[in-house]
């Protein structure tokens, strides 16, 4: 264990782990995540996703609507 100035923990790799219960394994997850935060959430009322089921439902709705993408 080493320590450098700035006090920032480094506890793992850059890969997104199973924090979204498998949704993050989908190849277009990052596009969905970006769309959700920038478009979908506001259209849905602005509240956070409350669980796995809601997250998958919003993802499936995004797929059905044509995978709208948000520019970086």
């Amino acid at each position, binding site marked *: 264990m080493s320590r450098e100035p700035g006090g920032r923990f*480094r506890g793992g790799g850059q890969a997104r782990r199973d924090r979204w219960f498998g949704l993050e394994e989908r190849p277009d997850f990052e596009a969905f995540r970006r769309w959700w935060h920038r478009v979908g959430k506001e259209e849905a009322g*602005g509240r956070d996703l409350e669980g796995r089921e809601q997250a998958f439902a919003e993802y499936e709705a995004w797929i059905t609507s044509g995978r709208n993408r948000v520019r970086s």
Partner: protein
Amino acid sequence: MVVAHRDWTRLDPRDEEGVIALLRDRHGRTPPMEAREIERILDTTTSFRLRNAAALALADLGAAGAAARIGQVLERPEVAPQSGTLLFALDELGASLPLDSFVNILRRGSFEGRAEALHFLDAGRISESGPEARARAVAALAALAAGADPEAAEAARDALIVLRPGADMTMAGTDR
């Protein structure tokens, strides 16, 4: 050409829809809303929709101090239940998440907030101000791990693997 000047401090905070529209269309307005005005909205609003729009606007601006301001807002208990997009904005800025804010989100956050917060842990982008702060956070996480909320407990156990004394971790460079 006459350029219209607008006093953004006179925005009606009750006009949630109007302010959100301005924040989301920030580049299409003359004059554009400045970062300090957006930060003022982020700091003072009680609307989670306004906070989301303000955080995204700050991420788009990439203004100096924006990440620190978002990180501070994420320390507030009342913000935690609707914190997912603030965390996303912080991620867009490439910044780290303050440890106190991280603990706050794990304790009081939504499914989405915890997922976004744990992303910072996985990416090695949790920042803290010293050993005392870290010890306080580890104690809070240990209590959370033994608590009644199963989702918060699971997230806290994951965090403790990285953050508790003796864990295999390094401390990386400064935040932006």
